[in-house]
């Protein structure tokens, strides 16, 4: 089993990063939308945001690790993809990083604007960068809109992968699922 990426495809580490972070991102989006609608007397009124913040901060660390892994590995070839689509794909992939980092940063700023730390599952706490009165509302609005944007981007990304796989007959789905062919 290949750990590192090759020009022929993605190694195990990249594939795990891809699917685990994807799953966590969709889960956090659903949890976020659900938790802000909870009533005050709902048993999950305090625990749901606690989980959302804990998982979100862990995701931030995972994204940094994923980004580093992406940079230190060779990029699998995208030959055979139309030049315009290749450019669009690059833009989409980098947009994921930009949006996701902006989402975790605004989430962090929202919950720490009064100087309180964020507690990660009661294991450890990430301290506040300092008090920023009123920042919570601005950061919160940006957090929500960027989250919808990243969901829209995920839909485009999925449609594009399906298009390359079934219409262009390129192994985009198998490449991200089962890795490069063994040599």
């Amino acid at each position, binding site marked *: 089993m290949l750990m590192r990426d090759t020009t022929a495809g993605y190694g195990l580490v990249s594939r795990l990063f891809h699917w685990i972070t994807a799953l966590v991102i969709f889960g956090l989006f659903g949890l976020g939308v659900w938790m802000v609608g909870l009533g005050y007397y709902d048993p999950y009124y305090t625990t749901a945001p606690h989980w959302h913040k804990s998982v979100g901060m862990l995701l931030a660390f995972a994204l940094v690790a994923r980004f580093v892994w992406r940079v230190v590995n060779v990029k699998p070839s995208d030959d055979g993809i139309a030049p315009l689509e290749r450019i669009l794909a690059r833009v989409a992939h980098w947009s994921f990083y930009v949006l996701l980092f902006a989402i975790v940063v605004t989430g962090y700023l929202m919950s720490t604007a*009064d100087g*309180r730390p964020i507690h990660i599952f009661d294991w450890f706490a990430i301290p506040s960068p300092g008090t920023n009165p*009123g920042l*919570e509302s601005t950061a919160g609005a940006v957090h929500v809109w960027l989250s919808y944007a990243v969901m829209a981007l995920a839909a485009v990304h999925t449609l594009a992968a399906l298009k390359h796989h079934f219409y262009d007959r390129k192994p985009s789905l198998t490449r991200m699922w089962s890795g490069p062919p063994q040599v």
Partner: protein
Amino acid sequence: MLNRLSPLALVAALVVATPASAADYAIDTKGAHASINFRVNHLGFSWLTGRFDTFGGTFSYDASAPEASKVSVEIDTNSVNSNHAERDKHLRNADFLDVSKFPKATFVSKSIEPAGDGKAKIVGDFTLRDVTKEITIDAEFVGAGSDPWGGERAGFKGTTTLALADYGITFDLGPAGKEVYLDLHVEGVKQ
């Protein structure tokens, strides 16, 4: 000598003889000698307190005719501060103050009924989330006079109670949390 001084003496006599009349005061928000505090019962267990950091207003006050006094206050709803950022964010959204739609809350007095002993009932229109209701503030004179820096000041405290549902705030905080109690402290600087 006496003749030359007499016009001045006359003026002085007139000033002294003039009865104290209503004076206008600006609420001292610059020096923060005024606060609009609120408290809501939390689950029936304790009191959650907060305040509005930004507001302004004026009042007129005449010690000899307190019923002729007037007060007007404008509150910046976005300045809500309950010492917890996530809660303040929630208080600003549509469940509560909806500050993007309703950035101001106002109180304008209509009549003042002195109740003796420095106390008075201030009846006026309170507007929150575009809903205007007549409310009564139980007010009490605290003190007035010259301050050490050359100005004149007068101060009052007051309390009133608002039913959240009256102003369209229906987010369920439980049976003990249906009302908000306002504790007001106002010091004005004579203009």
